[in-house]
């Protein structure tokens, strides 16, 4: 055990834990689950610190995503379901305060894997190929999950009578 490594790890955790707990919370939508997820990721980072200390945050984030959507790794042995037409168009509700709160609740209610895809695509603003790489799945799966997530958001919000707009090319 190296004292300098321990100090580096402590400094990294102190500096980045606020940002990382936010990511964990967006992924889990639950305080205790978020804390568990972050602790699990940091513990694994500590275990491999010699190898990852030059870029620990990317490693920690990837662990968090993969822990949260580990089902994809099991699913990888099966054939992927891909879509003929990627969902380039997005659906968004009207941007009123009420609609914003409803969208927030709908995001909380999404299954973890769909929320993770939206986080990577819409919050982290990553291209599909990079999302696929992080999650260990195909680009086609990223597209289909994004489409399904948006469709589910739409179905959850539609009964509330919110106005919506189809946008896109």
């Amino acid at each position: 055990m190296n004292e300098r490594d321990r100090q580096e790890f402590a400094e990294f955790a102190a500096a980045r834990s606020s940002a990382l707990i936010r990511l964990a919370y967006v992924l889990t939508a639950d305080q205790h689950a978020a804390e568990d997820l972050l602790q699990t990721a940091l513990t694994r980072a500590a275990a491999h610190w010699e190898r990852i200390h030059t870029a620990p945050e990317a490693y920690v984030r990837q662990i968090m995503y993969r822990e949260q959507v580990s089902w994809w790794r099991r699913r990888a042995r099966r054939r992927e379901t891909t879509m003929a037409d990627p969902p380039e168009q997005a659906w968004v509700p009207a941007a009123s305060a009420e609609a914003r709160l409803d969208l927030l609740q709908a995001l909380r209610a999404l299954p973890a894997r769909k929320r993770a895809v939206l986080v990577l695509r819409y919050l982290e603003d990553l291209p599909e190929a990079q999302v696929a790489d992080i999650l260990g799945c195909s680009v086609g799966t990223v597209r289909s999950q994004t489409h399904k997530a948006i469709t589910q958001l739409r179905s959850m919000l539609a009964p509330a009578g919110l106005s919506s707009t189809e946008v896109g090319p």
Partner: protein
Amino acid sequence: MTEPDAPITIALRDLAEQAPAPGLNTDALWRAGRRRRWAAITTSVAGIAAAAVLVPLAVLSASAHPAPEAVPASSGSAGLHRPPPIQFRQVSRIADSRCPAGSHGLPGTSKDECFYLTHTGMAISRFASVTIVQPSPGTSGYWLSFRLQPADVNRYANLTQKLQNLASPHDQLAIIANRVVLLHPQIVAPLDLGVFQIYAGHTRAQAEQLLHRLQQR
């Protein structure tokens, strides 16, 4: 990202802002991480700094379970009865990737690790007991406390004697059930009492899952 996607992005940011304060004990996480990798292991050898938190348990175990009678030492498998045996094998190499098809490696619990093992090892039909313990209130993590059957104690003592203080990862002992490496503790002392503790996870759920996998054979 296109402009019309902004409400989803904003909502995700709103959600992120509701996150709790981190409140981490980084020292505890560091120790847990190092133990996860090297899975520090000890019994009656009090004073091993890397496993200080385990010392009270180790002393308790040592006093409660004196060394049993001698059993011939051996390498390789023994006690092949149903249920399938638990194997202990020396680690030769750990690759940070899934085991290639057709390789001799065995997967770990994370699926991102592949363990290559030497022929040094032994097998047991079962543990006398395995229980989940938390060293003391306020300390981080959960541990599995193992007790070997008396007939296995000396073989295990000889095996751990061979591995102690070798260069990493040759000082690690893979514990295998159902062809999966569930644990790979570093051997820092010969374990001659048949009682030892291994770090099993930061949460009780992780420890319970590990225990379940050890029992599900």
